[in-house]
């Protein structure tokens, strides 16, 4: 099934929303695993978004200009004895696209809604 150009799918909306939540907490940039954890937390999902699905969505968002990415300074990664991270950041276009997507949702609620609650 082909998607309409310019339309955000639910996962992309979740990624952009989670990135803004992280930014409000002081993390302006995020890497794949971090955003997967944040999306899982916000949606109260059982498991993290699949590798292929997540990185394909990040790739799509970046190509659409809604995210931008850079590779972390190798010195920092070496200092912490871990591989380099690819750090993403939501662009102004990304914020606008998210606002539009949320406004066009039937219930029009600009908040992440848990799919499941742990009661």
């Amino acid at each position, binding site marked *: 099934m082909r998607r309409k150009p310019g339309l955000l799918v639910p996962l992309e909306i979740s990624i952009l929303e989670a990135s803004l939540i992280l930014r409000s907490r002081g993390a302006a940039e995020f*890497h*794949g*695993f*971090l955003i*997967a954890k944040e999306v899982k937390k916000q949606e109260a999902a059982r*498991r*993290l*978004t*699949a*590798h*292929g*699905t*997540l*990185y*394909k969505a990040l*790739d799509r968002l970046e190509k659409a200009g809604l995210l931008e990415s850079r*590779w972390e300074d190798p010195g920092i990664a070496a200092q912490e004895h*871990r*591989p*380099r*991270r*690819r750090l993403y950041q939501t662009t102004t276009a990304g914020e606008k696209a998210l606002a539009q997507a949320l406004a066009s949702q039937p219930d029009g609620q600009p908040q992440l809604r848990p799919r499941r609650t742990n009661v």
Partner: protein
Amino acid sequence: MNTFLLRFALALVRSWTRLYTAGLAPTLRHARRAEIDCDLWEHEREAFDSGVRTRVAFDIFFRWLLGAPDDLAWRWASAGQLTIWRKTVPVILGGLTICVAGMAFAAMVIDNIQYMQESKHIIPGDVLMALSITLAATGFGFILIGFGIMKRVPGFASLLVVTGSVTVGILFFWLIAPLVAAVALSAYGLYKAGRIRKQRDVSVV
């Protein structure tokens, strides 16, 4: 067992990533592999910090399994300049790998859990036999295809030979000599692939 499962899941995702990015443009290939390596490192750290290695192993396994179709779709979309042969073969083999590795993983886990609980294997012998035959056929198939395409795509071919050899080696552990020969040949293929890739990267730059 916990660490073994975790290592297995990590190796599975790493091998899979190398498989579906094989033959793509160097920048694209290196970026995706590095990103997945980083993601797996975070998983591994979480597993060792929290001590819940089995759960993390399953998380990794399911993230891989559920995302594999998207990986293949991404490869298809990214491999615009590749020939149909190089676009198609890894995709078909990728599908086969999902089935075989998934079956092997499930069988190992189920059999092991049941063995721990009741000190006996509960999976029927004929099912295990069918699984072994499937795995053996796939292993030998990978080796044969790997040797067949060793000259054309040495990197990918080596990966196939190693995967096939390990599968066959696990099933028929007494076949040490062919296993060592296959691994040696694969090492040569990887070395050759590395040289070809280096030349290609230099020409791209």
